[in-house]
């Protein structure tokens, strides 16, 4: 038993221990354990990344030009973002400059991922934390239609439409084969939506499932497929030919039109379905403002979406860069990914070993050496964990820190930083939402705030795709067809040794890859990933990570149903394959 | 096998000689076309439909491959039908200590450790060993890997696939078979370099006819010592 304070939280692991393993509706494998006091309020939280593949080990000795394909397979949910980060890291190391068109296409692909990933997360991974599917059976289709029409002009909203959905749902439930909805927490008092809102959400769950596959076709056009489109060090692999013979074999007018029409339909769906649903659901939950965790204290983003090619300085990036610590929104700190004192990873509580585990390592000097073991107070055995000992090593996730601070990253972090920087693109939509829901700005620092920021960002990204597609067209019109720079394609043109860093704002937050190249081969490759930040275990000082912090002080309606735990964890959109890689 | 007599001996019968030169020719074509299959010539101008360069190169490869493979099969037949020299390519007298001693002797001869070369009616034992390892097994290897690759193009249910398709998973996957088939080329070419060099050298330095033997079939000896 221990009690201590960190980051303003009082951790007490003396109460009843509740284990959730596997945590579902996330990417990959994760376990969480919490202690509850006699009022079923969480007093201690322990999150464990329960998978590891060793990509950093596997990358050693490989051709740096291939690295994007390996790192892309870190995750199929945020597909492409690791690949983009990787080609940027290699280009940074080798001093390769990419053509404007390649920059626009890459941005469109990255924004496309943001939209898609956020949409799928909201409806298919997160919605069931707010929406009671079984309650939808009790809804009045006519009232549902009225609700839908009151919040959006989306055409699929007739009483008949909702009645059909309800009938299908009813038959499905009556079949007795509940499939993915089996053993759900239906009827739990933490579900607050009226039946009509539930039915509308179920309808959109299905619609979004159908529509999401359209969004990604932009990846297919520029990258050949989705998931896991193709990338290229020095640019993009798809050549442009709009004027000449043979254009049918390249990105031509028909392809550009197809991209354009998908962008339009995407904007429509996000703005007419996702955003109204989000606001409608939020309006019923605005009294449930748990789960803030680190968001009101320490948040960080690297920035992304370079407007002009090859300029990665903060002023050229459309997503903000900076760090806020100790909740001081008046100061946004500069973040430097190259500074050995800023970003460091610790492994005291992770299943890895360092020579000196009291110190952190900057990723350029990072080490990945597995070391699976349980603490002496763990219950069960090495291959049958009943209870984790958080005083010892307990997760496959490393513990990254910025200047020693545990940070939250992600859409909410980006919106808070953009807000603090008074950037109207982020401030205005946030203020709009706060006003609509009639809540103070502090309401942002919550599970709900995280979920809302994600939706706003999806809309932002959808509109920015339009910006870059137009920019691409304008550049083509100005006569520039170039998509790749091959000056330094051949390894013989490279220096004997080089190092570089690539970064993006992945859907789940700040992502960085650090590479060292020696004799044309990868000498060291380290990834610090959004979910590495958010899912971080404790560090030598006992500081907890964002997941753990967010669960603190949350009451459970039913101690044997982890609905609120899932709700808050899902608000981060955890990706465990990413976090441990 | 050392010889003492000195008159001309009929060693290589006509079918064997014919095979030798057809085989040499087919391998030349196979190596050349194979190389350009792997590292194609610069891009051709014009419409695709007006060009067929890769197509022709591959066609030449496959035609030569059939010649090569059928020739090899015929050569196996000749091992039964022909004289005992015809069997040397397929049977090593590995249990004969005398043969090994001669391999040893020939090795010393090529390392300049023996002053006087010996005479042989058929292949010298070292040459026989080399041919067995490089040509006999090399050909089998190239035929199996080559036809396995060919079967991929012929389709999954044809006779090529039935006979040779199993080779692909044996190596892992198709790409591995390509690489090994390609390495096989260098294996055989390494032999050819040594073989041609030695044939010419022996013609000059040894005490019997060599190159002309593969043309006329007769072994002539240049002196009467044993």
């Amino acid at each position, binding site marked *: 038993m221990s009690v201590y304070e960190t980051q303003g939280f009082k951790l007490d692991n003396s109460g009843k221990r509740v284990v959730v393993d596997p945590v579902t509706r996330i990417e990959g494998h994760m376990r969480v354990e919490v202690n509850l006091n006699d009022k079923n309020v969480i007093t201690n939280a322990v999150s464990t990344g329960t998978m590891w593949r060793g990509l950093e080990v596997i990358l050693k000795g490989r051709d740096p030009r291939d690295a994007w394909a390996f790192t892309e397979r870190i995750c*199929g949910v945020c597909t492409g973002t690791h690949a983009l980060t990787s080609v940027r890291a290699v280009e940074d190391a080798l001093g390769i400059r990419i053509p404007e068109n390649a920059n626009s296409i890459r941005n469109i692909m990255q924004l496309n991922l943001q939209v898609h990933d956020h949409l799928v997360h909201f409806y298919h991974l997160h919605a069931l934390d707010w929406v009671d599917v079984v309650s939808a059976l009790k809804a009045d289709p006519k009232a549902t239609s009225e609700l839908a029409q009151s919040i959006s002009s989306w055409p699929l909203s007739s009483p008949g439409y909702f009645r059909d959905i309800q009938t299908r749902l009813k038959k499905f439930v009556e079949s007795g*084969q509940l499939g993915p909805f089996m053993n759900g927490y239906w009827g739990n008092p933490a579900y607050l939506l009226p039946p009509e809102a539930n039915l509308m959400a179920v309808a959109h769950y299905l619609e979004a499932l159908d529509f999401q596959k359209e969004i990604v076709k932009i990846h297919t056009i520029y990258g050949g497929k989705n998931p896991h489109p193709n990338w290229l060090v020095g640019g993009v692999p798809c050549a442009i030919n709009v004027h000449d013979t043979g254009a049918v074999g390249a990105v031509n007018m028909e392809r550009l039109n197809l991209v354009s029409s998908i962008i339009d339909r995407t904007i429509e769906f996000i703005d007419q379905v996702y955003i109204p649903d989000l606001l409608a659901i939020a309006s019923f939950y605005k009294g449930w403002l748990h789960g803030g965790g680190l968001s009101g204290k320490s948040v960080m983003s690297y920035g992304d979406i370079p407007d002009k090619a090859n300029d990665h300085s903060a002023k050229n990036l459309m997503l903000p860069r900076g760090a806020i610590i100790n909740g001081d929104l008046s100061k946004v700190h500069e973040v430097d990914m190259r500074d050995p004192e800023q970003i460091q990873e610790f492994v005291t509580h992770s299943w890895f070993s360092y020579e000196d585990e009291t110190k952190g390592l900057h990723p350029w000097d990072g080490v990945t050496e597995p070391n699976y073991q349980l603490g002496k107070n763990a219950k069960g055995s090495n291959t049958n964990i009943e209870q984790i000992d958080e005083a010892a090593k307990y997760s496959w996730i490393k513990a990254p820190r910025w200047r020693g601070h545990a940070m939250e990253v992600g859409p909410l972090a980006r919106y808070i930083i953009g807000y603090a920087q008074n950037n109207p693109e982020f401030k205005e939509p946030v203020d709009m939402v706060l006003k609509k829901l009639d809540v103070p700005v502090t309401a942002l620092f919550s599970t709900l705030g995280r979920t809302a920021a994600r939706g706003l960002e999806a809309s932002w990204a959808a509109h920015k795709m339009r910006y870059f597609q137009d920019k691409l067209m304008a550049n083509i019109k100005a006569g520039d067809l170039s998509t790749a720079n091959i000056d330094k394609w051949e390894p013989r043109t490279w220096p004997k040794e080089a190092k570089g860093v690539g970064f993006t704002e992945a859907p789940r937050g700040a992502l960085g890859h650090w590479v060292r190249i020696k004799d044309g081969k990868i000498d060291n490759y380290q990834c610090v990933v959004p979910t590495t930040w958010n899912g971080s275990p404790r560090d030598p000082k006992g500081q907890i990570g964002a997941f753990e912090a967010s669960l603190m002080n949350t009451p459970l309606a039913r101690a044997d149903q982890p609905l609120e735990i899932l709700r808050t964890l899902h608000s981060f959109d955890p990706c465990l394959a990413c976090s441990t890689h | 096998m050392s010889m003492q007599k000195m008159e001309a001996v009929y060693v290589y019968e006509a079918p064997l000689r014919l095979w030798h030169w057809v085989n040499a020719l087919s391998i030349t074509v196979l190596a050349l076309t194979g190389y350009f299959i792997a590292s194609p010539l610069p891009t051709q101008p014009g419409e695709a439909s007006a060009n067929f360069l890769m197509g022709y190169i591959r066609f030449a490869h496959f035609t030569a491959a059939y010649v090569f493979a059928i020739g090899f099969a015929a050569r196996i037949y000749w091992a039964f039908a022909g004289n005992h020299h015809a069997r040397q390519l397929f049977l090593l007298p590995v249990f004969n200590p005398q043969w090994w001693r001669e391999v040893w002797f020939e090795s010393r001869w090529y390392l300049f450790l023996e002053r006087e070369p010996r005479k042989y009616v058929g292949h010298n034992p070292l040459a026989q060993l080399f041919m067995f390892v490089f040509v006999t097994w090399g050909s089998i290897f190239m035929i199996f890997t080559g036809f396995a690759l060919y079967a991929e193009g012929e389709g999954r249910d044809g006779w090529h696939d039935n006979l040779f398709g199993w080779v*692909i998973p044996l190596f892992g996957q198709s790409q591995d078979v390509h690489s090994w088939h390609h390495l096989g080329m260098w294996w055989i070419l390494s032999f050819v370099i040594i073989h041609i060099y030695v044939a010419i050298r022996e013609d000059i330095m040894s005490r019997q006819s060599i190159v002309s033997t593969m043309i006329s079939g007769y072994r002539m000896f240049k002196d009467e010592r044993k």
Partner: protein
Amino acid sequence: MSGIETFYDVMRRQGISRRSFLKFCSLTAAALGLEPAYAGKIAQAMETRPRTPVLWLHGLECTCCSESFIRSAHPLAKDVVLSMISLDYDDTIMTAAGHQAEAILDEITTKYKGNYILAVEGNPPLNQDGMSCIIGGKPFVEQLKRVAKDCKAIISWGSCASWGCVQAARPNPTQATPVHKVILDKPIIKVPGCPPIAEVMTAVITYMLTFDRIPELDRQGRPKMFYGQRIHDKCYRRPHFDAGQFVEEWDDEGARKGYCLYKVGCKGPTTYNACSTTRWNGGVSFPIQSGHGCIGCSEDGFWDKGSFYDRLTTVRPFGIEGNADQIGGTVAGVVGAAAAAHAAVSAIKRARHRNEEKSEEK
């Protein structure tokens, strides 16, 4: 098992009339080359069978096979999940978590013993006591074996389950192991690809449900219907290959005209998959159409064959590493040099020998 919806119920509910249902059955029979009498049997099977439960387990993976699956346009993923199968366990989308989730496995494996399909995405690691992939506190390999025990058949989704994929690339630090090397006593259908094409995934499932049989597999356990030919066999750039017209460098004239990508490393000639015909994401494109070579993502061990941009890829005969021309060319070069040196020494020796003979004569 009353109260459980059958395939027929599902179709009826979708607004399909009895007449068109029976027509569907006879078309199915015809497509299979069966006598018309079989149509009745198919109809009967569909009328009486509940939806087949599918338990979808996840090991070491990137979840992109799931992502691909939900992109299916025909049938829609929604219809597969709600109407064709009963996806009772899939940690990526299921509502329940923790012990409520684990309880489902016990229930289904008992209730549908021998009648459920096990779908596996990812693979089990065997190093670190199997604990580099933990589910419910235990190694994933235990869950896999437990669920495999009473299943009807296993579908190995993607290159991870089929071959090992990226985590099994050298040096495979977790000893990630494909499913068929851990489960030896069940029929396994490999559907490789990183990820596989969505419509190929749903087609494999619907084939099994419709025809109630396992698709015909090739030597390596892949359905012949989708993995019987190479990308190259049906690639629309093939005329440029045959003509000898290649992309020589990125973004060159050949690239803008859509020439063959062979010289920049396309693995289409050695890759069995349906990409060049079925294409991706509703037929919009596929890797080659968008200008990048195939990287061979459905082939065994494709990560360890050298760079994706080299035509001649790395081999490791006897521990030496290089491509066939580097290794073979070096050997041949050394042999040639040795022959030349040998010739030189021979000439010198011969000259000296002559001199000796001459001096002896004197």
